[in-house]
């Protein structure tokens, strides 16, 4: 069976570069024999998380908001690899990507356990996807690069990802450099 790759494109409507990177990811993943799905989150109707915890204690595993946020959560947990593609915003994710991730907490159980000495939520599923973080910076910024990597590594712990890899691109890179880096991060994530 072909491995499923989900690319969550967190670019805003006007962010042509992020969308272009998303399409490159899909092309390269297909070339490696994978089955990719690209979701442009700016085009999906995803309401913000209400912080109500109903997905844990009223409708277990299911968000009470019936919109595209549910479908994204389902696709995340049913994929083999999920790519968080986002412009780097103060070292973190764009609101477009984050609104989808905030709605993914039904994928976890409310119960706690200790993982490497820290408290985290227990798995709801036996399978969770690998994570690949691909951040796009407007220019070279060591602090934001380091923060973006730290963030996705934290996410990997909380989302029980069996593997995590991170890549960073700059809007100032030429196309060839950019494609080479995308290829590299994809290879890391899929290997």
């Amino acid at each position, binding site marked *: 069976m072909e491995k499923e790759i989900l690319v969550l494109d967190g670019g805003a409507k006007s962010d042509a570069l992020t969308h272009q990177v998303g399409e490159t990811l899909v092309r390269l993943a297909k070339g490696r024999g994978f089955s990719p799905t690209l979701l442009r989150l700016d085009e999906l109707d995803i309401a*913000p*998380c*209400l*912080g109500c915890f109903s997905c*844990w*204690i*009223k*409708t*277990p*595993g*299911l968000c009470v908001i019936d919109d595209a946020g549910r479908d994204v*959560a*389902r696709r995340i*947990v*049913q994929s083999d690899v999920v790519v968080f593609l986002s412009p780097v*915003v*103060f*070292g*973190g*994710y*764009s*609101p*477009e990507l*984050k*609104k989808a*991730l*905030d709605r*993914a*907490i039904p*994928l976890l*159980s*409310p*119960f*706690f*356990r*200790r993982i490497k*000495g*820290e*408290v*985290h939520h227990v798995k*709801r*599923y036996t*399978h969770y996807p690998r994570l690949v973080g691909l951040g796009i910076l407007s220019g070279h910024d060591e*602090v*934001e690069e380091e*923060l973006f990597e*730290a*963030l996705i590594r*934290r*996410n990997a712990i*909380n*989302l029980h990802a069996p593997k995590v890899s991170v890549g960073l691109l700059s809007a100032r890179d030429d196309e060839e450099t950019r494609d080479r880096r995308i290829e590299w991060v994809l290879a890391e994530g899929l290997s």
Partner: protein
Amino acid sequence: MTEHVLLLVGSPKGPDRSQSGRLGRIVTDDLEQRGWSSKTIHLHEAVQTREGTDDLLQAVDRADIVLFAAPLYVDSLPAPAIRALQRIAEDRAAQPSTKVPRFVSIMNCGFVEPAQNDTCQRILQQFAQKACFEWIGGISLGSGGRVTRRIRQAFGLLSEAVHEEILVPEAVETMTRKPLLPSRIYVIGGNLMWKRIARKNEVLGRIRTAPYRRP
């Protein structure tokens, strides 16, 4: 002249129903007693409309200090709070001002370790720098932002630092940094709480349901 504090609440539950709002109000109430004026904005509401966003940007322009209070969502801020910070940074870049308001953050998370807010605090610090605020410090709380006597004392020191226009003292971090409970106890207590609520909601038997299991 009366100094002005702007409280930005980044919880979907808003200023009155969220722990973030309650924590922020501990500081704004204290400052009001010292003669400050205050305004509170719910970021989720503000970013929904043009008018709300304009009101937010104008309020930031008027503030001597911005107090940001939010819950930790997936190791970072809730999406509408990120959107609001983006708008503020864009606005301040477009209309550079000589005024550099101070910025202080209060983050709370549902885990016992306050340190789980660290990455998010650094994101906020980065925002403050990019948007031309003077970062004076951040408070990180675990255990859902529960306020104990020690935490209340730390908030007293925070208010004093804001009023005296100094950096948040290291003692505040020392007082808030330590988890309120050993993690083993927190796990046991937290799990009992979830079970109790699920039983009350008559869903305990299916609390581990996995509706999106792969076919």
